[in-house]
């Protein structure tokens, strides 16, 4: 694909500005960055507005902005599950997570596994929660770099350099990686929060332009929906012996929304806020991003209506990235060159910013729950911060190797599994904010949930996560995370009285810590 100098120019100006902002973030409301809570939680200082930008950028990543429309273009109505998912998570956020914030503040917890360690006094369970978080978030970082690759391809920047050991590496990807690693290391969560503000403003501008300008060029929303295969426009109805795609749709939303705030990067974002009330207010104002997400999902249909898939100039992009190239191709085709530059900057920065928080979350988890938990229990706070910075860098480097060396489909499959795995921490973390089950029973439930969830997806050849269950001749197509969680919960509740008879473990929290 050829490079448009105007598009590239606008993109570069925005990208460099953001990179500088990220590096300067270290000085913004400067704290002592040798402390883990300063580097890895921004000093727990962010107010309502900054948290809104930070969580918005953290939860609605560039990968979402590329993958959701791609799914819509391919699967139709089923892809719209992202909307109930991104909406129904907010009452849960509003009710439960201020409790996590309060107990974390009272006891100095930085991660969900910290809470589990304190709540249950069980090192094995805390380690299992930390490892589940690490394994679930790693492929997510890799997918952000995939999003970056899509933008680089759309900009027509195919410059590669041959490096020893890894072979050909795209220079723009390497530059983007170094920018991200640099601001993550020097500024921690403060740099990321500053970047989030710019990134989200760019995203809203792009979405607003896209939903007004593109449909009017295509002849209105009626024409856009007319381009979709009528069979895909709605969910097929269930039958007497099959609950049908509608049930799968609901469980997919439910499992995803329950999992989202259990991800390490979500916890990092939530705990960085300055009070529990910041979280409560954000549950009301964050849905603005879900409106944007719903409109972005419709871009998938607009790509169908514009017919970009069959245009020769985008053939190479579709060949490399499949349906993920639909949105970049649509922007290139519909927008003036300078505006395409803004849109691509929004996606590229939207990839680096959450990838940075995810890496910080990996650093926090490893340092608190593996390094301090098992290797050096009495380490100094400065050592903690140093280890976390190093691990965050290692996580980003790992993600880079992942996208360079392995097929993108592995990252997608691992992220699919990651969502199912992280959902299994719900009984220990989310439910643990209300009810204390026995830690050994929780560990058994977690193992059963992860095991059965993985087995179901393996049965589906890692291509889907909706596993059909059969009960008395009735077929129930259910998101594997939800059926695995049901088994997990049943086991945890059933085994609790039994294990409590042996040992309850200790709980350092009291009821008043949560309110």
């Amino acid at each position, binding site marked *: 694909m050829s490079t448009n100098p105007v598009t590239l120019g606008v993109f570069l100006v925005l990208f460099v500005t953001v990179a500088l902002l990220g590096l300067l973030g270290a000085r913004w409301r400067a704290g002592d960055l040798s402390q883990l809570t300063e580097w890895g939680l921004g000093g727990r200082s962010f107010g309502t507005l900054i948290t809104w930008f930070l969580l918005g950028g953290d939860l609605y990543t560039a990968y979402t902005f590329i993958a959701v429309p791609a799914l819509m273009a391919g699967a139709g109505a089923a892809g719209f599950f992202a909307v109930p998912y991104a909406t*129904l998570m907010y009452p849960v956020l*509003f*009710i439960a997570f201020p409790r996590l914030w309060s107990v974390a503040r009272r006891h100095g917890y930085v991660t969900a596994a910290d809470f589990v360690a304190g709540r249950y006094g069980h090192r094995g369970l805390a380690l299992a929660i930390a490892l589940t978080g690490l394994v679930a978030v790693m492929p997510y970082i890799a997918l952000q770099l995939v999003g970056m690759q899509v933008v680089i391809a759309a900009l027509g920047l195919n410059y590669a350099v041959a490096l020893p050991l890894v072979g050909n590496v795209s220079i723009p990807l390497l530059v983007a990686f170094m920018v991200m690693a640099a601001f993550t290391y020097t500024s921690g969560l403060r740099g990321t929060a500053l970047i989030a503000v710019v990134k989200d403003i760019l995203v809203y501008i792009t979405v607003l332009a896209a939903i007004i300008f593109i449909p009017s060029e295509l002849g209105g929303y*009626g024409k856009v929906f007319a381009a979709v295969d009528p069979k895909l*426009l*709605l969910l097929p109805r269930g039958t007497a012996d099959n609950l049908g795609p509608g049930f799968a749709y609901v469980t997919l*939303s439910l499992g995803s929304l329950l999992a989202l705030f259990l991800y390490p990067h979500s916890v990092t974002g939530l705990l960085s806020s300055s009070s529990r009330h910041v979280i409560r207010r954000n549950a009301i104002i964050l849905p603005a991003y879900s*409106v944007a997400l*719903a409109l972005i999902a*419709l871009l998938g249909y607009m790509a169908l209506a514009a017919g970009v898939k069959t245009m020769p100039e985008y053939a190479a992009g579709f060949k490399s990235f499949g349906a993920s190239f639909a949105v970049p191709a649509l922007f290139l085709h519909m927008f003036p060159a300078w505006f395409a530059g803004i849109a691509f900057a929004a996606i590229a920065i939207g990839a680096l910013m959450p990838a940075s928080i995810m890496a910080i979350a990996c650093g926090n988890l490893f340092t608190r729950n593996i390094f301090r938990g098992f290797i050096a229990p009495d380490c100094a706070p400065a050592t903690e911060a140093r280890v976390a910075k190093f691990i965050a860098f290692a996580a980003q480097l790992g993600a880079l190797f992942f996208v360079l060396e392995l097929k993108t489909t592995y990252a997608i499959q691992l992220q699919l599994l990651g969502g199912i795995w992280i959902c299994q921490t719900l009984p220990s973390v989310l439910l643990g904010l209300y009810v204390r089950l026995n830690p050994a029973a929780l560990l058994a439930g977690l193992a059963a949930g992860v095991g059965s969830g993985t087995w179901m997806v393996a049965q589906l050849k890692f291509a889907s996560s909706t596993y059909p269950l059969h009960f008395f001749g009735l077929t129930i197509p259910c998101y594997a995370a939800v059926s695995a969680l049901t088994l997990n919960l049943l086991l945890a509740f059933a085994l609790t009285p039994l294990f409590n008879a042996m040992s309850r473990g200790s709980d350092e929290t009291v009821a008043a810590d949560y309110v």
Partner: protein
Amino acid sequence: MNDKPRRGFHPVYLILLIPYLAFAWVPFYDRIDPRLFGIPFFYWWQMVWIVLTALCIVPVYRHQEKRNK
């Protein structure tokens, strides 16, 4: 900060269940008509519920503010 144990359940919290019921009733909104600006019902109904869900949280938020005073 309130150090007393949690008070009894208040019915205002039931409002938070409404959005879950609205989205769970798929057969109701899985239809084309009526359209809005050419957008089929399935899509605009769910988009409207994004805003309505946020609005459902508001009375509960207010209730908590009053309780904490």
